[in-house]
């Protein structure tokens, strides 16, 4: 287990390094950040000045290292637009997105896992077919459309929930549903497939031969083994949600990281964009790492050797 952990850790670090370099390099896709900041009316002298102030005249690898160094101390420079430290802005936005993502994944799990289990126990029953139907629907629906339709139904026709903002928990209900809805097909299918496979295995037959009752067989023996891949997929799905939050937050006007990213991109606020991408990437890498480690820990064949 130790070697397994170390390997995974090393991989995560390597990936983080490369990703940080990439997101840093993103900046240089457009022709010249300095002139972008300066705007159309800037003269050459202005641009040269800007370059100096923002340190854009130094060699690129120095810029990169400086940036990384500061990033490790949670300093991402100043936002061009807000005229505030990026870290400060993120500090208010990040928790919002994390809460949203977390509720969404919990929502998805609470519905998909039981559905997957039931579908596995009674294949081809109406529950199974309904679950499959829902998952097919879920994969095809554009998220922003679902969000908007929910607003129409739940905020306009039957005024139940507020359409936008982040004042209280009601504001999170619709975004959670929309965000969580997209993870459900994958989790449900995986649970179903995993359970179906496990239920035909020899050790389940042994459990029956011991006289164990179906409840105990299902939860203690079958689920314990079938759930292992679901755990890692869930972590990965959580990462996807962070990406998907950009759309959902825009639809529901939630002041989270996704919305921040969108605003910053529209305004060419590069430091913020770089920081947001890096933070999201790191969260995702950490999640994948945790998922891998959890995977290894749950399976005694990896944990104990």
């Amino acid at each position, binding site marked *: 287990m130790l070697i397994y952990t170390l390997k995974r850790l090393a991989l995560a670090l390597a990936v983080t390094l490369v990703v940080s370099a990439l997101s840093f390099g993103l900046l240089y896709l457009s022709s010249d950040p300095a002139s972008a900041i300066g705007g159309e009316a800037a003269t050459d002298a202005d641009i040269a000045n800007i370059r100096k102030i923002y340190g854009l005249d130094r060699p690129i690898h120095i810029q990169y290292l400086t940036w990384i160094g500061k990033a490790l101390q949670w300093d991402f420079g100043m936002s061009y637009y807000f005229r505030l430290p990026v870290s400060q802005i993120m500090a208010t936005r990040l928790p919002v997105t994390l809460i949203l993502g977390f509720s969404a994944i919990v929502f998805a799990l609470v519905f998909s896992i039981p559905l997957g289990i039931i579908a596995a126990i009674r294949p081809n029953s109406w529950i199974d077919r309904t679950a499959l139907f829902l998952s097919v629907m879920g994969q095809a629906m554009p998220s922003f459309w679902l969000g908007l339709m929910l607003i129409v139904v739940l905020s306009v026709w039957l005024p139940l929930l507020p359409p936008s903002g982040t004042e209280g928990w009601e504001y999170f209900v619709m975004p959670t549903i929309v965000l969580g809805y997209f993870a459900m097909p994958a989790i449900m299918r995986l649970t179903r497939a995993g359970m179906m496979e496990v239920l035909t*295995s*020899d*050790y389940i*037959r*042994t*459990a*029956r*031969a*011991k*006289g*164990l*009752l179906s409840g*105990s067989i299902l939860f203690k*023996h079958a689920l*314990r*083994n079938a759930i292992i891949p679901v755990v890692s997929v869930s972590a990965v799905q959580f990462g996807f949600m962070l990406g998907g939050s950009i759309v959902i937050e825009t639809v529901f006007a939630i002041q989270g990281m996704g919305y921040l990213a969108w605003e910053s991109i529209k305004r060419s606020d590069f430091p913020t964009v770089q920081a947001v991408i890096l933070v999201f990437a790191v969260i995702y890498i950490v999640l994948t790492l945790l998922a891998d480690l959890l995977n290894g820990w*749950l*399976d*005694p*064949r990896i944990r*104990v050797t």
Partner: protein
Amino acid sequence: MSGVGGHLLEVENLYVDIPIPAGDLHAVRGIDFMVEKGETLGLVGESGCGKSMTALALMNLLPKTARRKAARLFFAGKDLNGLQEREMADIRGNRMSMIFQEPMTSLNPSYTIGNQLAEALFRHRRVSRSEARERALFLLEKVGISAAESRLGQYPHQLSGGIRQRVMMAMALMCDPELIIADEPTTALDVTIQAQILHLLRDLQREFQMAMILITHDLGIVARVTDRVAVMYAGQIVETGMVRDVFNRPLHPYTRGLLDCIPIPKKTKPGEFLGSIPGMVPTPVGHMIGCSFRNRCAQAFETCGSQDPEMRLISASHGFRCLLDPEKLFRKDHARNQ
């Protein structure tokens, strides 16, 4: 309420049908047998003859689509026919246990063997954790596993096949069953270990005074370990009797064919050809008439195709299912052995 004559297990007219696309597969076709307290019955036959299905039928662990039917199915005086699943589950692992063929995959990889052993006991008895642990240790030692204490905390993947099978045996014994069904317990193991496991089974059976049904395709095992034997072919029992009787005087052409195939010390003369049975086992699907062995039988005659042979007893315990005249067979044997 005790069954007639106090038999431990009474099976009469057991049928198992499995629907397949081509029709109904008659895995078990009207078999009768009995097992007494403390005795070992060997159920012998080729793959596909229905012996495993019989075992699963007794435990009611058949696949969901399979249908079981029996005129009588009594275990220790209790009628197993139509028993609720909950009551059957109370019997499984408790009074009737089963050991399966594949030790490598029969244990849950995510729990320690101590956990899985204790689980069998907790399900059927009210015991404390330390009592369960003691029982597990006791049985592990009985089945010949050294360093039993350290084994309790180990996971299945850390043990070899032979040890896993021993663990399975210990697990089957946790609640002191009256009947243990062993389905090809040694087939998946190395030859060197097979003998050990078999001896172990026999010793355990004697010590714990259990009845055992030993299912195998290997006549050699049957000869060594069982008291009585039932030979199965295409879902039916074609010959049954005390091991000595059946081996010394096999009646059914199939049994005789099987015995001809194996070299028997002191009987087979050096340089003599070993026999073989031509043809293949038929698949019992759909409507069946006549003797299922007739296409491979050297002594088959016309009626064999139209009349279903009944089981005929030639002594109190020895019977065979064939239309041939046993007297003629005896005379032939006698002539052959001159």
